[in-house]
């Protein structure tokens, strides 16, 4: 249930983000989900893409610092309290969320949340025990 997320180091300079999207577009890689964390000097762009290896190679060859991070994609009911009950469950198991970002599936009733946990294996186990739906890597890249 682990998914590969691409993390890219970006300086806060005009056009750096556009450079990433241009390279991915030329390589015909589709972006499924993204989040950008930033400070005044630099940012980290996190991406779920249709073809991880191709995206990683394309950006590396262009001189970007890229990393591979293991994340978990969790399906959450799109109604009030849906996310809360999930976070409660994690809290009770003392699993820390390093960061997360969400996207809503097209024509669906569910939201997908990408989680980066401090203890990924335990988190997956816990979610599986509680019948929480997770999206496997291959499926996520095809969404």
């Amino acid at each position, binding site marked *: 249930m682990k998914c590969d997320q691409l993390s890219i*180091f970006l300086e806060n300079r005009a056009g750096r983000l556009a450079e990433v999207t241009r390279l991915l577009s030329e390589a015909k890689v589709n972006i499924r989900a993204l989040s950008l964390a930033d*400070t005044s000097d630099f940012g980290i762009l996190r991406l779920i893409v249709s073809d991880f290896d191709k995206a990683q190679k394309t950006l590396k060859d262009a*001189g970007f*610092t890229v990393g591979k991070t293991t994340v978990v994609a969790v399906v959450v009911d799109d109604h009030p309290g849906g996310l809360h009950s999930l976070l409660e469950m994690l809290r009770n198991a003392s699993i820390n969320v390093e960061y997360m970002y969400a996207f809503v599936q097209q024509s669906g009733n569910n939201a997908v949340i990408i989680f980066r946990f401090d203890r990924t294996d335990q988190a997956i186990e816990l979610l599986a025990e509680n019948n929480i739906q997770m999206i496997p890597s291959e499926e996520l890249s095809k969404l």
Partner: protein
Amino acid sequence: MIFDIDKETMPREELEALQLKRLKQLCERVYANVPFYTKKFKELGITPDDINSLSDLQKLPFTEKQDLRNHYPFGLFAVSRENIVRIHSSSGTTGKATVVGYTKRDIANWAGLMARAFAMAGATPEDIIHNAYGYGLFTGGLGVHYGAEALGATIIPISGGGTRRQIMLLKDFGATAICCTPSYALYLYETGKEMGIDFRELPLKVGIFGAEPWTESMRREIEDKLNIKALDIYGLSEIMGPGVAMECAEAQDGLHIMEDHFIPEIINPDTGELAKPGEVGELVVTTLTKEGIPLIRYRTRDLTKITYTPCRCGRTLARMQRVKGRSDDMLIIRGVNVFPSQIESILIETEGLSPHYLLEIHRDGNLDILTIKVEVAGTAFSDEIKNLQSLERKIQRNIKEFLGVTARIKLVEPNSIERSTGKAKRIVDLRNENQ
């Protein structure tokens, strides 16, 4: 192998006798042929006859870079122009260029000294020397070139630039020695890696690096990555070019100064007085044999110290410590002396950081602000902001702890700091921009 065993292992008494004889001849030459020195001697009330021992050297005046600039281009030459067979010149980036001229004998002496330097690195006529120093007015390229030929080795005069081609030829020609700046050596390694070439698999054995200050930690990094022995060479165009001093492969412990051609002194850069034995100060060099443009007590601005204890390689020549910086490159940040080389050491020793960095200093009100731009190399990267921020804090803490200066650390993308094939540019001082 010792190239010139008579001179390089001369007992000190004999060496000093030779130096004194040559010093007296030098004084006579410049007094008779260089109006600048005639005037200086007269102002100080001395003549060449007053030089009767090596300690009389201190009676003689200093020569400064500015003196060469003031006599641009040929005003300090001691021979007529038709006896000059080659001209070299500095780039003139910090002011008017300094111009030096060489006679036939100067060129032959220089080649001989560079051949000694190659032998100190363990090179023999069997070796193939890849020379990536720039050819042209800069002394590095041609200095190395003639020295390699004097040794009888095979020289590849590739000069600077065209990095990917350099790597291809390093591989195809099987060079066993390389000459370039230390920062370019690391750039070659990085580019080689991108091309899928592992330097450890090349026949390269030794690198002779100079033309910019570097550090012991950078040496270790080069030796590790390129799987070679990395040696330091010293020279400057005003004195001759590369080969004024060279580290031996046996000891890697200081650079042997070619004392039969140059007399070194260490002075306090502020007072001009001789430093105590073994103390760090500014290197001052008197050229004993140069004909084209002999210089008396030339202030190099390079900071080092000298030891006279014989080296375990068998040479008796004095050794200077690797240059830790230039007295005019030293940054004074809020009253604290800082050398780029010190910052470089700290960065290299902080896990996973690249040795490519840039120091920017600007003034905010009356306060100097030092910003250090550091490239985030592969292993130092994390997908979490907090880890990168803690890396910044770690660098900041180390700089504060070792240098006593608070610096702003700015992580930048790989390869965003300009690479140079010559001297790396490490400092951007904007403090006088708005005044």
